[in-house]
C-alpha cells in the first residue's frame, strides 16, 4: 500500500465515522419525535428525511451543491459570515455522507424507540424523572441495540458513498477523494491494479465494520 492509499483509507474511515457521530444527536432526536409524539406536518418531515434514500444520490448531491455553494442560501452565508467554504472541501464530503446515511440511522432508531414499552417511561416520570432523564436512563438504553444497528448501517453507507460526494465535493486527490471515488477514477484511467488494491481495502473495511457490529450487538444481547 502506497502512502496515497493509506491517506485515502484513513480519510474515508474518519470522515465516515465523524459523519455518523455528527448525525447521531439530531438523528436520535428526530427518531424519538417520530416514535413518541404526534404533531402537524409529521408525515412531511418523515418524507423529507427518507428522500435521500429513494432519490438518485447524484440528485441529492446537486441539491446540496446548490444550497452549500457560495451563491447558495447556507453556503453564501457561511462564506460571508465566517469565511468558510464547504463545497469541494472535506467538509462537503462530511455533509454528503451525513445526509446520505441519515435516513438509515433515523429508521433504525425510530423502530427501536417504538419497541420500548411506553409504560416504563411513564412510570419513570411518576418516580420524578423529567423527559431528558427518562430518555437517557430508560428509552436510550433499552433502544441501544437498534441505535447501534442504525449507526453501523449509517457508517457502512458512508464508507461506500459515491454519487452525492462527487457532486458536492468533487474528487480532489489528497483532499476530497474517498475510496469509492478513487476506485472509479482508477478504472476510468485504466489502472486496474490500483483499482483492485483499493477494492481489497474497501472489502476489508466493510468486513471489519460489519463483523465488529455483529460482535457488538451479540455482546449487548448478553
Amino acid at each position, binding site marked *: 500500500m502506497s502512502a496515497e492509499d493509506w491517506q485515502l483509507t484513513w480519510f474515508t474511515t474518519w470522515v465516515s465515522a465523524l459523519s455518523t457521530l455528527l448525525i447521531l444527536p439530531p438523528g436520535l432526536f428526530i427518531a424519538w419525535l417520530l416514535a413518541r409524539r404526534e404533531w402537524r406536518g409529521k408525515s412531511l418531515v418523515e418524507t423529507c428525511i427518507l428522500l435521500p434514500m429513494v432519490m438518485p444520490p447524484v440528485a441529492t448531491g446537486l441539491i446540496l451543491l446548490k444550497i452549500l455553494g457560495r451563491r447558495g442560501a447556507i453556503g453564501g452565508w457561511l462564506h460571508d459570515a465566517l469565511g468558510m467554504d464547504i463545497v469541494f472541501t472535506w467538509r462537503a464530503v462530511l455533509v454528503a455522507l451525513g445526509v446520505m446515511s441519515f435516513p438509515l440511522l433515523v429508521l433504525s432508531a425510530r423502530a427501536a424507540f417504538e419497541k420500548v414499552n411506553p409504560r416504563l417511561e411513564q412510570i419513570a416520570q*411518576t418516580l420524578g424523572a423529567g423527559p431528558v432523564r427518562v430518555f437517557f436512563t430508560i428509552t436510550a438504553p433499552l433502544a441501544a441495540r437498534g441505535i447501534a444497528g442504525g449507526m453501523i448501517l449509517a457508517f457502512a453507507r458512508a464508507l461506500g458513498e459515491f454519487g452525492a460526494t462527487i457532486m458536492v465535493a468533487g474528487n480532489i486527490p489528497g483532499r476530497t477523494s474517498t475510496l469509492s471515488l478513487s476506485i472509479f477514477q482508477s478504472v476510468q484511467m485504466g489502472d486496474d491494479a490500483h483499482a483492485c488494491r483499493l477494492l481489497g481495502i474497501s472489502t476489508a473495511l466493510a468486513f471489519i465494520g460489519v463483523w465488529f457490529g455483529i460482535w457488538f450487538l451479540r455482546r449487548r444481547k448478553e
Partner: protein
Amino acid sequence: MSLVLKDISLPLADFVLDANFETRGRITVIFGPSGSGKTSLLDLVAGLRRAKSAFIQLDGEVLTDTAKDVMVPARRRGIGYVPQDLALFPHLSVRQNLLFGHRPEQNPKFKFEQIVDLLEIGPLVQRGVTQLSGGEQQRVALARALLRSPRLLLLDEPLASLDARLKAKILPYLMRIRDTLGVPMLYVTHDRDETLSLGDEMVVLVRGKIEQSGTVREVFNRPANLSVAGIVAVETILPGHVTGSVGGLVTVAVGSAVLSAAEPAIPPGTGEVHVCIRAEDVALLADAGVQGSPRNRLPGIVRTVARDGAMMRIDFDCGFPLAALLTVQACEEMSLQPGARVVALIKAPHVHLIPR
C-alpha cells in the same frame, strides 16, 4: 388524604369515562369488571394522560384543571404508581430500580432500609429484575414506588396475575403498607376478597360510570342497583371473631351466634374476620325438629319477604341479620311471612371467612 375528581370526561374506545368522586379513605378500592376504565382513571390521577375535561385535587392542591389549563406533570405530583405489568426497568438491577426515584438527600419520609425491611427484599437487591419470581417482582415494584415517599399510591390489580398461594403471601405486605406506613392508596381490583381485606371505601365503576360509592360494607351489603349487585354478588357480610379451630373447622362468633366454617386456608392466629354468606347458600327449615347434615343450624325470625327476580329474598334475624334466596314455590309451601319462625341451615364450606 382527600382526593377529589370532578367534571371528568375522557372518551375511551366504546364509552366515555365520566367518574366523579371524592374520597378520604386510607384505601379506596376502585372496583369493576375489566374494561370499565379503571386503569385510565389511575392514569388521569397520575397525570400520565390528558382528559377532554378534568378537575383533580389531592389534599387541597389542584393537580389537573382543564378549565384553567392546569396540568401538574406526573413527576411533580408525588403520586406513586404500580401498574398491572409492574414496569420494572429490565436493564437495571433491583437496587437501581429501587433507587430510581429515591432522593435520600431530600430527607424523604421513607428510608431505603426501612422499606427494604418492610417488604423483605434485602436478599434481592443485587439481582437483576428478570431473575425475580412474580411475587418478588411485585414487592420490588411496591418498594420502588414507596421509596419516592408518595402522598398517594396507585395500585392497578396488584394481585391479579398471581396464583391464590402467592396472593395470600402478598396481601399481608399490602396490609403492612397500609398500617405501618399509612400511605393512602387507590386500589384497582375486581376481586371481592382483596376489597374486603384492604378497602375502607370503594367506588364501583361500570363502563366508565360510577355506579355506587361508599364504605366497602355498605356497597357489598346494600348494592345501589342491579348492575352493582350483579358485580359484587349480593351476600351477607358481617364482622366476626375467630374463637377456635377444631379438625379443619374454624369456629367464629358473629353477633350472638357461633358458626362453623371450613376454611383450611385461613392463616393461624387470625382474629377478626369478615364472615361472608351468599344468600343462595342458605336453606330454611320450617320445623326445628328435622335432622340435617349442615354444621350450622340457626333458629331465627323472618323480618321481610320480597321478590328478587325469579326468586324470593327472605331477610331474617338469627342472632345477626341473614338473607336467604328461595324459590317462589318453596316460599309458598312453607308459608313464610314476617314473624314466622324458621331454622337456617348453612354448610360449613359455604361460610367464607376473609381476614380483616
